[in-house]
């Protein structure tokens, strides 16, 4: 049931249209940020407007016309795209509020550039979410790499420059070296059709040998997913201001990576074809290795943002692990984890930024006892950690539950073991941060704290992180929306 509609176009374009307004209003910051807010709310509303049609099993389509022979530039909104767009556009509103507090609180330079690039990045993210074929997906994938570069290197110092260099060389390099040839190979093989269809457009047109190479080229080429060995851009991108790390490097950019891989599995090959070809074991192993290794590295990181980055790498690998098992439960779990992890991880990053703002502390070892000074922030950090670990009553429990079921369905006990070990490692590297902050005495003794009293970050920062922390709990109670959208992926496939 495909329906022509302008809504996908509008939803994609709103944030782009805001860019000229943001640039023009650079003299009056309040109007400038007001524009961003309006764009964010309108975008979310437009995405929501498409929800009923998608929930009814429909697909909304908008085409710009054919760009390459047989390949239009087109948007197609289905369950998976909807899920991702909802997460990204709703969190953009909160991140904007947080950015205002953060950027003004720290008196950052070049705020106009920051907000403009942010808006372009969100457009690119929505473009990826709605992409109707591989070419459109690639176009917006590259657009996202380029538009986030100025954000990563925002500080303009030596560290930012080297972080930016790693960022682009990894993301652009892999996409040109691996994804581009794989995509053109698919185009040649499929006879000029690249639309994501339910059964995959390569179904029956590719053998196991070249299938494996193409699959690996896509999986490694979409390096935004942070899969090892092309993961090191992510910890290095932590030099960016915290709102960027929060929305882009915990939600938008990295999820675009896994989203693309999910699309390759379901829309390019098709789950059934992959089962027949039996080529996903390699991906499973790479993802499994990434899960464990990144968790171990996270244990050793003292810089909080870097620790969170390695945690993200591990959590993203869950998603790829889940889909590579090719079982219905695994895929549901993967799609759900995109949303669940997003709310958990963005809370943690918001907290890391709030701590930096209030105390100037970046390292975990400095944060002992800090909870007395920042009770709200550290409580939110605890809730976010629990959601990431996957304990009830938080949203993360559901996705991990389905991932675990998926591993059992596929008969992969080793994978189930990896999931359990990794959850234990999550506890080891996340919980101590919150627990030490909340329940231990600060090194200077209690007098120190009494003198300081409660001193949180500005309200513009504390409100968003409280909302996302609570959202993790709400998603546990009402996971239906996320679950239903994830199910659409299965029922169609």
């Amino acid at each position, binding site marked *: 049931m495909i329906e022509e509609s302008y809504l996908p176009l509008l939803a994609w374009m709103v944030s782009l249209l805001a860019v000229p307004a943001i640039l023009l209003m*650079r*003299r009056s*910051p309040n109007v400038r940020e007001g524009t961003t807010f309006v764009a964010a709310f309108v975008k979310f509303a437009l995405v929501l407007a498409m929800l009923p049609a998608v929930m009814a099993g429909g697909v909304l389509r908008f085409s710009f016309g*054919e*760009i*390459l*022979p047989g390949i239009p530039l087109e948007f197609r909104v289905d369950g998976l795209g909807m899920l991702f767009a909802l997460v990204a556009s709703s969190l953009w509103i909160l991140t904007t509020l947080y950015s205002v507090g953060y950027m003004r609180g720290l*008196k*950052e*330079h*070049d*705020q*106009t550039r920051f907000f403009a690039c942010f808006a372009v990045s969100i457009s690119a993210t929505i473009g990826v979410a709605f992409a109707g074929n591989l*070419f459109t997906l*690639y*176009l917006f994938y*590259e657009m996202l790499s*380029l538009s986030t570069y*100025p954000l990563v*290197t925002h500080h*303009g*110092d*030596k560290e930012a*420059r080297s972080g*930016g*260099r790693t960022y*682009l*060389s990894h993301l*652009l*390099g892999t996409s*040109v*070296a691996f994804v*581009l*040839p794989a995509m*053109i*190979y698919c*185009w*040649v093989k499929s006879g000029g059709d690249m639309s994501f269809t339910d059964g995959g457009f390569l179904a029956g047109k590719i053998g196991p040998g070249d299938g494996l190479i193409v699959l690996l080229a896509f999986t490694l080429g979409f390096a935004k997913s942070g899969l090892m060995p092309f993961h090191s851009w992510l910890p290095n991108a932590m030099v960016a201001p915290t709102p960027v790390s929060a929305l882009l490097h915990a939600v938008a950019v990295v999820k675009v990576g896994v989203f693309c891989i999910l699309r390759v599995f379901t829309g390019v090959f098709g789950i059934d074809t992959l089962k027949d070809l039996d080529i996903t074991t390699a991906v499973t192993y790479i993802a499994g290795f990434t899960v464990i290794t990144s968790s171990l590295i996270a244990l050793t990181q003292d810089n909080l943002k870097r620790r969170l980055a390695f945690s993200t790498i591990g959590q993203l690998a869950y998603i790829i692990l889940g889909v590579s098992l090719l079982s219905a439960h695994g895929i549901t779990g993967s799609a759900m984890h995109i949303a669940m992890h997003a709310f958990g991880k963005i809370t943690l990053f918001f907290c890391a930024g709030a701590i930096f703002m209030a105390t100037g502390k970046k390292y975990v070892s400095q944060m002992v006892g800090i909870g007395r000074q920042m009770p709200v922030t550290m409580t939110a950090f605890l809730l976010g950690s629990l959601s990431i670990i996957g304990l009830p009553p938080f949203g993360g429990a559901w996705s991990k539950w389905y991932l675990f079921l998926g591993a059992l369905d596929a008969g992969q006990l080793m994978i189930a073991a990896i999931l359990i070990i990794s959850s234990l490692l999550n506890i080891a590297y996340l919980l101590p941060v919150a627990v030490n902050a909340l329940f231990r005495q600060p090194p200077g003794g209690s007098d120190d704290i009494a003198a300081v009293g409660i001193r949180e970050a500005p309200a513009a920062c504390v409100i968003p992180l409280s909302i996302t922390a609570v959202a993790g709990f709400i998603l546990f109670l009402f996971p239906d929306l996320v679950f239903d959208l994830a199910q659409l992926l299965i029922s169609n496939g």
Partner: protein
Amino acid sequence: MTEHYPVVILMAPLFGALLATLLGRGRQVACWWTALIALGISALFAVGNICAVLASGEGELRYRMGGWHESSGYEVGIELRVDMLAALVVAAVTLVGFVNTIFAKTRVTGEMREKVSFYYALNQLLIVGLCGIVMTNDAFNLYVLIEITSLTSYALIAMGNRRAALSSFNYIIMGTIGASFYLLGVGYLYIKTGTLNIDDIRGVLQSGNLWGHASITIAFILIMLGVWIKMALFPLHGWLPNAYCYAPSAVSSFMAPLMTKVMVYVMLRVMLWLFGSEYVYSSGHVWGELIIWMSIIAIVAGSFLALARTDIKKMLTYLIVAEVGYMVGGAWLVNGAGLAGSMYHIFSDAAMTFCLFLAASIVILRTGDHRLTAFNGLFRRMPLTMIGFTVGALSMIGLPPTCGFFSKWYLISGGIEAGHWAYVAALLFSSLVNAVIFFRIFERAYFGNLKGVADEQFPDDRDSAPPLTLERVPCSMLIPLFLAVMAVLLVGIYNNTLVSWLKAAMPPL
């Protein structure tokens, strides 16, 4: 009237050149207007020409110069033949010539002083030569026109700075060798076939079944060598970097996008129309595989050499060497996608090279520095120029929706169809090297001075500082740059139409 379009395209700049010479020194503005109007007419008719070809049933226009009619089955006089490919290349040449003349206005007065009128005259003659090369259907006439473009370009290059004279001399030697090779080859063909008309030569080769003769093989090899020297295929590229680098900027921004591309067109014309694809691609010859490997070496070597340069223009010229490899390789993959990619890249490379050379000229003019250090901090100081440069650079790297992406798309799909993985790898390698080259520049332009940054203290908020000081670049330079940017994007977005037209012009493989 439409049948006379091809001649008008040639005549307008020819008379414009005469007029510019007659006007002579001291009337710079009048010379500029002459050139602008002549090339404007030419460009207008070139666009009309495309429509005429589209409208014609056979997909080609033929025009007998001087009204000479064929006798006993052979063409006696010079014939012009314009198919879709030729019409598009002519349009590209005249449009770039027109836009570059706008660009040249302020630049030329500074660089050439009393030679301005000669510049306009020679530049128009060069365009006459290039358009003639593209449209003529006579193998010997093609040689004459190649010589016309060569002679004018020697003179134009020599107008540059002190090192230009030597590089121009170097170019004369190499260019003359190339042209002589070509002429020798045509001589062999004339002896064997008794005609100089390109279609007739192919007809005689076919009907007389002369393909097996050693002299035809020698003719083919000689002509190819000549053409490769003129198009600077590695390792025959030695003359190009210095010639384009030390030439006046208004000259290099015209020659860099077009000269090599027109020679690629000549190569395709010789391969597909003079000898015919049955002969050139027949499995009896070893050269197909060999030439693809030569193109791979050209791509890799060109990229490496470009990476090692610190001079802006010289770096860009080595990129041209790599791009020539793209087109030569694509033409020898023996499939529709590769050939279409090769033809499409003529336009796409012309657009992006034009864009980059214009931007680079502006940067060199404003900063007075011809090395990469000129770019330090330019995103803030010259945002408009840098936007133009960025679009050109992204196209070189091959990111959608710029035209560079689509030419890579067709060429790579041709490589995959032919199963030639080394060629595919070379294209990807060159993309990656281009990414390194250009992001190195972006980094400078974005962060400013590499050494100074560590100590630089940022003011609290630069947004409240006075708005970006608009670069003091005259509109006559910025408008051409933005027209080039439009070309990069439009050639990219309308690649589908362009390629379908080109495929219609292709003889069956």
